[in-house]
């Protein structure tokens, strides 16, 4: 069975003074993968500038816009429709041979192949004092440990908006113990990597019909690579495995690789920006 989702993304920018030159790049189109099938994409901007569909440096679809006239405000609206296959997060053989999989992650080839997702980045560097804050129990399988880490992160951080922003690093998050989905995901990735498991930050949409945290903005979760199984999605903000309600847009080493909107605007003075996201589901 599959569900059809309809996603609306809106952004509005107001500038105090005329803007003569501006470029934006949106990274908001859901990824095509074996659980996500695209139905349609519709993108509009209030200035009628051409929407150029392209691929960014990490291989994800983007929309680029450069208005060729001066303006003081611009708004964008995207509508995506896609079919999401029913995902059973546990739908794999847990025939993980515990000892072998821990050996696997120690192999050089493995480390080289997954190098970017094992790297400590700006957002996923643990403070020295916290490097052993979560250690894997090698008696248990990697998957079990990741589930435990997911739960641990969920418990350790208190979901609270407005206390962190896109610049917050793990140091503050671990000490203050609150944050939003980005912060949960960064901490999860950092600790998975600390234990030798490749982990990537995922940006996407969350269908909130079931009362999950994720606010009305874009959502973030993580994927970890489990030997012999593959990439598995973990949502530490909600203590869940990623499922049908998680609609993936892009992944990267951390938020910096996935920020939904990048812009270069040549203007002086103040500006205000607002974003809104809505995800609707139609059962089929």
């Amino acid at each position, binding site marked *: 069975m599959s569900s059809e989702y309809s996603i609306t993304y809106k952004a509005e920018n107001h500038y105090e003074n005329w803007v003569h030159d501006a470029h934006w790049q949106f990274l908001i189109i859901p990824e095509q993968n074996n659980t996500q099938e695209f139905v349609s994409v519709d993108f509009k901007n209030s200035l009628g500038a051409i929407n150029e569909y392209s691929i960014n440096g990490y291989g994800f679809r983007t929309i680029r816009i450069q208005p060729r006239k001066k303006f003081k405000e611009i708004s964008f609206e995207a509508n995506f429709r896609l079919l999401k296959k029913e995902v059973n997060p546990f739908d794999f053989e847990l025939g993980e041979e515990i000892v072998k999989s821990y050996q696997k992650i120690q192999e050089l080839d493995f480390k080289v192949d997954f190098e970017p997702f094992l790297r400590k980045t700006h957002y996923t560097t643990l403070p020295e004092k916290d490097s052993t804050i979560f250690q894997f129990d090698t008696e248990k399988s990697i998957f079990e440990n990741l589930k435990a880490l997911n739960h641990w992160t969920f418990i350790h951080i208190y979901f609270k908006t407005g206390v962190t922003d896109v610049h917050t690093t793990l140091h503050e998050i671990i000490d203050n113990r609150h944050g939003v989905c980005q912060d949960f995901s960064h901490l999860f990735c950092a600790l998975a990597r600390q234990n030798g498991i490749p982990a990537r930050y995922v940006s996407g949409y969350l269908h909130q019909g079931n009362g999950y945290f994720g606010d009305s903005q874009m959502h973030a979760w993580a994927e970890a690579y489990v030997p012999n199984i593959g990439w598995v999605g973990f949502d530490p903000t909600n203590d869940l495995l990623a499922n049908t309600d998680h609609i993936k847009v892009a992944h990267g080493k951390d938020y910096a690789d996935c920020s939904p909107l990048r*812009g270069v605007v040549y203007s002086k003075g103040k500006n205000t920006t607002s974003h809104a996201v809505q995800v609707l589901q139609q059962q089929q």
Partner: protein
Amino acid sequence: MGKIENRIFSSYERNPILYDEIYDKNGDIKNVYQKLFDLYGGHSIRDYVKLNTKAKSSFFNQGITFQVYDEKESQEKIFPFDLFPRIIDQDEWDVIERGAIQRSKALNLFLWDVYHDKKIIKDGVVPMELISSSANYLDQMIGIDPPGGIYNHISGTDVIKHNDGKYYVLEDNIRCPSGVSYVICNRTALKRALFGVFNHYRTYSVTNYAENLLDLLETTKPKGVDTPNCVVITPGMYNSAFYEHSYLAKTMGVELVEGRDLFVENDFVYMKTIGGPLKVDIIYRRIDDAFIDPLEFRPDSALGVPGLFAAYKKGNVTLANAPGTGVADDKAVYTYMPQIIKYYLDEEPILNNVHTYHCSRPDELKYVLEHIPELVIKPVDEAGGYGISIGNRLTKEEIETIKKQVKENPRKYVAQPIMSLSVHPTYIDDSESFEQRHVDLRTFTVLGKDKEFVLKGGLTRVALKKGNLIVNSSQGGGSKDTWVLKE
């Protein structure tokens, strides 16, 4: 040899410990320099000073200058230039040329590998840290096949001659190596001042660089393009290398553009001309990776072109050098060059590498800390001669400071034995006479698809401060015309 009174060199003091490029072991003038020595010797130092002044003003009037910014205003200065050329004979040059090509090719294969299968790391030849802890490794380049298979179209290999008389490579510059315009200007200036001396030597021309560069860049044009449109992109006229950028554009016969002259539409790059947009296929870029596309890299960059990387990734435009080449010119990679050459080419290195101690390895760190006075300590990720400490020049306190810095951050440092750069007679303004000064040589290698070119000459850089070993222009270096002799 008959004793001719040589007026100009009569006061030349020769330190026998140093390797002097124009004298042999017995203290006689080397054959290749004899004629030059006699010709210059026929002048008085007064004549020489006059010529020198003339050459300087010619540089000044041609605007071959760089800006020095101090608190009050910017000043224009010329690069100090010495009228006594350096000569490299055919046999010696042959080694340098083959060595430079070998290194450039090996580095190109290395770059392909680290952005694709990473075999060299999996085979344990070089450590993973070369990419994982390199600030210049660009994840966005993973899996991209650059047009023509070339990453480092242009390489600047810095070589020196040690007091054993052998050439050693000091570093490979494969981001945006600069200096080639000075090679050509030096030649022009020397010809203007002392054209007569060229009658006595058969010297290779250096003016063919730009045409070869354009030819070879064109071999790496994007697929589906017949006659590629090539441009040079510069950060702008306030950049210290702007003269070189404009010189290259002019002699290649292509447009010199700034980021604001280009735009990307549907993943193709265009330039804004008086007749409307014109597609651009090859960009020789003199802007660092981080600044080429604000939508992909540093968002505060006003120098680059939004969307450029997407166009590159699609294969619609060639960037020379490719983004991400910086990973291979880190000093850490340098230390593995012999292994890298062997791994990809199955050849022995033609040019020597200076032995390098990695402070990241505990036993080598121990050695370094104990032998600082005999070593040069270099930060792994600085260019332009910054942050280099030369052990035998340091005071006790300075040694302690360095030790502390290295201990705190061993990964950041490598150390090498102090190389004794060869010296060359150089005219010194203050003493109005010729003195020994240390020199190195920057060579310029261009790689194209199945073709390569090495500029027969290169930039001989002179450390003008007495005893100084650092030749970079930003550190008060000058330069000399460099003659490669035909047989």
